[in-house]
């Protein structure tokens, strides 16, 4: 299980750049990113290399940010993972890819999901 940062941002030019600039200026590397938007605002989901520090600097910049548990799997395992989770009655809320080889999944029950996946021989990755 890994931690994702979820950041509330206004949907305006420059807001995302501002967020990434803050991280970059603290030498925090973004490993994966997904954006969900609804009109005037959105949520940016990030996997970073130094999560604790990222949380601190973003809060210091008055951003609404929090942590969420997500699961990373190999892209090769995707279809069997989705099938396994469906069979276990676990819902996938959203997903996005990471470096063309891995997929980040947000499910409604991470503990059960990891159990089901490992039962099917699918490994949940660490970052």
């Amino acid at each position: 299980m890994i931690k994702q940062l979820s950041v509330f941002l206004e949907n305006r030019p420059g807001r995302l750049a501002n967020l990434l600039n803050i991280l970059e200026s603290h030498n925090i590397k973004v490993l994966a990113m997904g954006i969900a938007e609804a009109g005037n605002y959105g949520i940016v989901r990030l996997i970073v290399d130094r999560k604790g520090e990222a949380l601190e600097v973003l809060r210091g910049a008055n951003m609404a940010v929090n942590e969420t548990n997500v699961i990373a799997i190999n892209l090769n395992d995707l279809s069997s993972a989705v099938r396994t989770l469906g069979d276990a009655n676990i819902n996938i809320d959203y997903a996005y890819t990471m470096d063309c080889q891995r997929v980040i999944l947000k499910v409604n029950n991470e503990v059960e999901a990891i159990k089901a996946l490992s039962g099917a021989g699918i490994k949940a990755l660490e970052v």
Partner: protein
Amino acid sequence: MCTYKLSKSELVELQNKRLRWLVKYVFDRSPFYRRRFIENGIDPESIRTKEDLRRIPFTTKTDLRDNYPLGLVSSDLSQIVRFHASSGTTGNPTVVAYTKQDVESWAELNARCLEIAGVTPKDVVQVSYGYGLFTGGLGLHYGAERLGAKVIPASTGNTKRQLKLMKDLGTTVICCTPSYGLFLAESARDEGLDPKRDLKLRVGVFGAEPWSENTRRRLEEQFVESAHDIYGMSELNGPGVAMECVMKDGLHVWEDHYIVEIIDPNTGEVLEPGEKGEMVVTTIMKEGMPLLRYRTRDITILDDEPCECGLSHARIKRILGRTDDMLKIRGICVFPSQVEEILMKTEGVSPHYQLIVDREGVMDRLMVRVEVSEDFKTDRLTDLVNLQQKLEEELKDTLSIHAVVELVEPKKLPRSEGKAQRIIDMRKI
């Protein structure tokens, strides 16, 4: 301090006696009121009781402007010892003139206000209202001094210094606008202080802008032990016209100095206690610039039931808004306080907001910009969409018009150190 703990019948008797004095006084001395009486065929001798007041025309802000600067002064100019002025957004400011006795009364009324909120001579009172032409600072300053408390005349601005004074001098009573109170609390936290632990604020005296029960809750959670509403305006001396006692269920109006009526702002008809309308005040003790039936443009409700604190002075409800702050949107009256009330009880948004009205074609549109609070925990867009929809539904229920809610990032809306700049009206009419 003279006693103000009179019975209801003593109060009414005193009011009628002072009203008779006032009517004769202005008829003899004020060319403005003398002309008013004569033009309307009113015999000053015929005004005997509060009920007779209804026959006298209202005095309005326009009357003060038209007679700028000193046309409504009743006393001899040689008796005037002080001027204050309130800023006019257009044209002339409003000038008010005080005799020595007026300044005395003003101090006395503010001392009473502090006393019924539980302030004692042992308290350290930081006055963070503006000093100068604005009456807020000096009014509470005099009150605290009259009560025998220790006064810190901090005035407005310089938030860091305000917090330092509070900490180093052990301030126990803070007097400022409620929005500045919230701002001070927020600034204290930014400096690593927990106001409830690191400061000793017992009582907050908050006025000069309308606020809500939810703001009280926030102020009491984050800043002071007990937050009290104070009411006043420079035309009526300044702060100290009415104040919340320890029961915090309405503001006692000092009825031995002021007669309050509530009217329908459109028809001028006097309403019954319990009905919402514009507050009209007659000053029965002022000498310099007494006013008969002055239209305050503040909307409230009169409550003449006895208060549990034992005072018989009638109470007004919190100011619900001003007749001229009142936004008319598609013909419907909207008060910012109504919007504030909803935003403040909603989890996930901060107490800071902005109302923007514009016009598309012939249709007015209301947009409410609200800050998502920093600790709003979600990674799901649906939670935000639900929050927005919930706010829009509640606004629609309360205001009877549709408002678009726009969620913005924390601390993005302008903070004001004085009266909050919360309304932007972009309609070109």
